[in-house]
């Protein structure tokens, strides 16, 4: 099957890209001032030369730069993301531990934002020029313009502190011993606020884009054809306009879905969500190189993966791709 082969070819290319990214990231991070050994020593509240020497040796920092790079890249080729000396665990384990939480958060936010965004965009486009359209558009603009963390803090304040409806942070009720459905429900409760805050911004983006795209497509000739067939407005919007209008939204969404994975630092921080965005941020402060590199690599892989998914979705939505030059 050629499509399958093509996907394989693409994956192969992606692997090369990833490797290049790993190398570049390595340079980037090592350009940062700060030394993980010193940080670790510093945190201990006391340190002497012997200790720092020991740490540097353990981290492999006493070796020349190119040896470190070579070792790192060599490891990656074998699927080894290295070892976090700070946390005393293989990076891959650290990430694997955090990734599900991040994926849960970001995918939920993504699904919410995409579905609501498109729905609202369609609604606004259908009412273009009317008061309800202006209302929706302005609302979207507000979500777009409000700093994410501000929204997050406010959400916690209102729904968690004042109303007490939803937990304000965390991934699940700690030590609740919930299992099965109860646990899922518990996690869902914790998920609502962060997913909403993270999703609102993107919802606004998708909505505006859908609206613009719908309006543009609605001037296309084939819409007139559809009208000439005697189709009703809603049917035309659903069957003809939306499908064509959604393509640019899909492209953008694909790119952002990937980015979300590593980009939810703020939300994860405010809501104490144990995801990899925070892992990255905390590792950065400690110059825990292997961990940051690992997170970057994983999120780059996500971006690439989502791009491939986007391409496939695109092919499903638009039959011209793959045939057109």
């Amino acid at each position, binding site marked *: 099957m050629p499509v399958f082969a093509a996907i394989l070819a693409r994956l192969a290319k992606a692997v090369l890209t990833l490797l*290049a990214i790993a190398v570049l990231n390595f340079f*980037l991070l090592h350009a940062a001032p700060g030394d993980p050994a010193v940080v670790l020593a510093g945190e201990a509240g006391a340190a002497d030369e012997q200790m720092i020497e020991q740490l540097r040796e353990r981290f492999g920092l006493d070796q020349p730069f190119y040896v470190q790079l070579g070792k790192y890249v060599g490891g990656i080729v074998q699927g080894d993301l290295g070892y976090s000396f700070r946390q005393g665990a293989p990076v891959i384990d650290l990430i694997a531990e955090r990734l599900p939480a991040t994926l849960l958060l970001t995918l939920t936010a993504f699904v919410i934002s995409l579905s609501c965004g498109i729905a609202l965009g369609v609604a606004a486009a259908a009412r*273009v*020029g009317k008061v309800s359209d202006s209302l929706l558009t302005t609302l979207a603009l507000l979500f777009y*313009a409000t700093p994410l963390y501000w929204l997050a803090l406010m959400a916690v304040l209102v729904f968690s502190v004042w109303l007490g409806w939803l937990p304000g942070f965390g991934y699940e009720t700690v030590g609740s011993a919930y299992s099965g459905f109860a646990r899922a429900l518990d996690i869902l409760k914790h998920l609502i606020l962060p997913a909403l805050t993270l999703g609102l911004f993107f919802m606004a983006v998708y909505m505006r884009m859908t609206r613009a795209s719908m*309006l543009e497509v609605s001037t296309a000739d084939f819409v007139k054809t559809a009208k000439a067939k005697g189709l009703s407005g809603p049917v035309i919007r659903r069957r003809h306009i939306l499908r064509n209008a959604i393509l640019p939204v899909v492209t953008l969404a694909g790119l952002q879905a990937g980015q979300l994975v590593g980009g939810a630092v703020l939300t994860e921080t405010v809501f104490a969500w144990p995801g990899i965005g925070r892992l990255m941020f905390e590792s950065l402060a400690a110059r825990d190189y292997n961990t940051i590199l690992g997170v*970057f690599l994983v*999120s780059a892989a996500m971006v690439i993966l989502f791009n491939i998914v986007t391409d496939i979705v695109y092919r499903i939505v638009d039959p011209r791709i793959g045939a057109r030059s």
Partner: protein
Amino acid sequence: MSMWKRFSSNIGAMVGVLLLLTVIFIAIFAPLLFSHDPWQMVQRPFLAPFTMQALPLGTDTLGRDVAAQLAYGARVSLLVGLVSTLVALLIGVPLGALAGFYGGYVDEGAMRFTEFFQTIPNFALAIVLVAIFEPTLASITLAIAIVSWPPVARLVRAEVMSVRKREFVDAATLAGLSKPRILVRQVLPNTVSPIIVMASLMVATAILLESSLSFLGLGDPNAMSWGYMIGAARTVIRSSWWLSFFPGIAIVITVLALNLIGEGLNDALNPHLSRKGKA
């Protein structure tokens, strides 16, 4: 001309312009509006707003004038927004233009390079860059520029690629014009409108990014910005709501204004839509 007419008859866009001009005015004349600088401790801390005439918006954790901070903060936030957008354009436009125009290896190379910046989540990259360069106004601006140019490059590339295929480019080639000249004189002018629209949105995004960085403690400690204000106030959000509320509103208003302008430009530059929008 007709574009300007369309633009000026768009109420939203004009509201945006008005708001932005107000913010710019306040930013420029901050030193005249306030006799003290925003770091100066002028009163007791946590003075509620509207209680003292001289300090209409109250004071912050150290007893500094919130209103003055807001005005001075406008300077930094706008500056970061504008300059980083400018820098992003300076990187993205030439790169995208060259890639789109020359195609082949140039394109391949440029796009791989762009891809690299796109695969790292841009907020994460901004954090790393600021940490590397250490947070100063310049490094923050640069970091924001560095994470925001790839979409510009892609947009410009796509536009240039489509314009390059238009026949007037062939006509220019036939007239014996050199390639760089064709690129600069014939192709690029035809890609300005989407770039302008994008730029207006980028300024908004940059202001938000700066404030997010500040929130994480990666702001320039010597520059009073709205992001700094919110970041500093978030721990007292419960007891002193105004400390994060006013700068929050300022950001919302500015970003809103820029968006309205961007949307207005978008409609104005795209007559198709504007006709629709008003009908």
